[in-house]
């Protein structure tokens, strides 16, 4: 039993890891088929895992309701919304007063999606603008040299990206890199220091990813299987 819990996953990880790595270098139709089959297996596993996920969600919220934990009223809403949305997906024809009223021609499920789910999503996304403002305020307080540099850079970027920056540049530029040519400075900031930093990070990330793959393929890293050492 311990073999299937410890060694067997390592063997599978090793064999599949080496196989999929080698596949990259083998340009045959069979190699492509192997990749396609692998993707299919992955989809099947994800489908079954989704069922587990749904059970986990319901179990969590049901327990919350049952034990009357703080905020259990929200769990009622979650369970209710889950079943309404799921059942609406099974209803094969439009329900009076919903789809027809809006000339959408879709069923109740699509009505819920269009008029409830999408606006809620958009609301969450739109909050981001305010969060950016508050995060920027916190970051731009010039308490240290780094924060001051960040503040100055951000100001240049902001002015360089709005029409007034272009106007200032047009009316005052003598050469490409005068102090007031904000669009040019913006471009420079993005293309030189920013790109250099991003590439540095990316290089480290890619080498780390290769290293973690080697660790997993050779069974050195086993934390993801539980236990680990």
């Amino acid at each position, binding site marked *: 039993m311990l073999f299937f819990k410890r060694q067997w996953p390592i063997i599978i990880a090793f064999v599949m890891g080496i196989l999929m790595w080698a596949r990259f270098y083998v*340009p045959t139709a069979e190699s492509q088929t192997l990749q396609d089959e692998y993707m299919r297996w992955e989809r099947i596993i994800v489908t079954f895992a989704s069922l587990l996920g749904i059970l986990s969600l319901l179990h969590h919220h049901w327990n919350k309701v049952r034990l009357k934990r703080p905020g259990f009223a929200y769990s009622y809403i979650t369970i209710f919304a889950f079943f309404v949305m799921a059942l609406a997906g099974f209803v094969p*024809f439009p329900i009076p007063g919903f789809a027809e009223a809006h000339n959408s021609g879709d069923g109740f499920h699509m009505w819920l999606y269009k008029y409830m789910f999408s606006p809620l999503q958009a609301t969450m996304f739109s909050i981001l603008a305010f969060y950016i403002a508050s995060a920027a305020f916190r970051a731009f307080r010039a308490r240290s040299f780094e924060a001051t540099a960040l503040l100055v850079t951000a100001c240049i970027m902001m002015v360089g990206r709005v029409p007034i920056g272009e106007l200032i540049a047009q009316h005052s530029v003598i050469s490409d890199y005068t102090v007031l040519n904000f669009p040019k400075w913006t471009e420079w900031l993005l293309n030189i220091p920013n790109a250099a930093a991003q590439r540095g990070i*990316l290089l480290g990330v890619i080498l*780390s990813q290769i*290293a*973690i793959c080697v660790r997993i393929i050779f069974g050195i890293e086993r934390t993801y299987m539980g236990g680990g050492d």
Partner: protein
Amino acid sequence: MRKTWLWVLMLGLALGAPGLGLGQQEAQKKPPAEAAAPAAKPGAAAEKGVPTATAGGPAAAGKDAAALATPGGPAAALPPVVPPPVPMVVLPRPVDVEVFDVPNDNGTGVGVLWNWEGSTTETTTVTIETEVAASILDKYRLTADEQSKLDSARAELAQGLSSLTGPRDESDAALKATEADLTLAQNNRDPQYFTLLKDKWQKAEELARLERLIGLLRDRYLSKVQKLDVKDQRFRYFEATLAASPWLATNIDGPAADIGTKADSANRFGQDPSEAAKFYAEINQMVALNPAAVAGTYDNSVKNEYDQIPPQALQLPLDKNVLHNMRMVVKDGDQQAIYDLGGTVSRVNFFNFAVLNNLIFAVLFCIVILTAIVIARRNPNLFIRRINGLEAVDEAIGRATEMGKPVLYLTGTDPLSSLSTLAAINILGRVARKIADYDSDLIVPCKDPVALTVAQEVVREAYTDQGRPDAYREDNIYFVTDDQFSFAASVCAIMIREKPAANFLMGYYYAEALLLAETGATTGAIQIAGTDSISQLPFFITTCDYTLIGEELYAASAYLSREPLLLGSLRGQDIGKALVMILIILQTVMFLINSELDFLRKLVEPL
């Protein structure tokens, strides 16, 4: 008015002149079928690039023009409006042709290199055709057993469909009629509207039921004999196409201007920069036409007996290990020329030599890492630089314990197939051990159901390893949703309601990163983030107390465990990074000396 007639008279005289005007138009009106006479056997061509059969080309056109030209008659006899003469186009000819086997993602491929003699125009089109042996049919021919199995499955399907397609079509027509009535009733505010609406739903339901049944029948058929059906379709397509001509069109078919040069496909020619301006086409598929298309009766709205629209053509890979003769059809307007290109055997390439350098680098890097691990096993006291974010893990968990608040841990929003999520799960294992030690609560809301099952297992094992299996609560590691902003909303709500003392935001994040981190910051929790998402790093740095940047996320598991084997791999990773840095510095210096010394590019580009 008089001036106009003078112009007409002059135009008429010009068009009537022998060898010009009318004669040329007649030659250009020759139908393509007549122009493209069957090509001679390619092997018989003495020289590659020499047209084996041309018609409608400059010479032929000139000859036809001479034969068909009529002596100029009286100008007044000509119609007053005559289209201007179309100038003759001299078709370009491929010379210095090379045909060779190339490695290809489809397994087989043929490359063709050539120079143009003469120039192409905007209207010049090029088609490369391959000669296909009739023996290919045997490859797709069904055996007697297969044929009988396919026939019986088809008969069963046809029988099922015959009883359903009729009612389905009637139901569809009835629904459309009711919809029309409904629109009318709506416009006229007719009291019958709701009755009609109910009627429409019933008909829509009936149509959907019939469609479902047809779908089920078709699915059943495909599950039984899909492979045989595909094989049979290929056979029929090939049989019809080969019966018309042994020359099959390939994936090279279009304007000559779209064809790139050798320089554009440098990865197919190693570091050899010679003849970079030569034109290059890579053939990896041949086109078999629908039998109806061969007969010229194909209609893309007509469904077959299985209620499907058959494709006009099938694109199939070149045959393995057989000689492929190639020819090029050059067209411009009504003119066409066919040139023999020669042939080559397209072999199965078991190794893509274009990525040999990639393999060498990968193997070298693996050797470096494995060597570093072996060295680390012998000498476990390796120095690893301090990572503040990971040093703060104990502090964060300790704070949570002191405050009696839980710890919130996120594994990112990517699925488990992403390495960032895997790294986050690895860190979760280490963090969970510490939490078990400190006897604090751990909440792990998950966005990916696969990550959920793994996270549950990892945390359970961590608690068991620390001798605290009783403290593990599976209910605290749960699936939320796989939708991005719903997940963000849910986690923000947990942060506000549960008020965790420490938030760990590990893994890959998108637009929700700031929503999560900013909400966490407002609750006063100590926040440790770790991501390799470059676009979200600034948000984490701004809003979190500690941030693991890029590679630190992947190093975290080794750092927290202090296991010699894992630390060894970190050391190997650092050696690899140092080597890359040395190469970049070397390349920069060489660039400063001479801008043509770009060895690094050549080293890493596909060969």
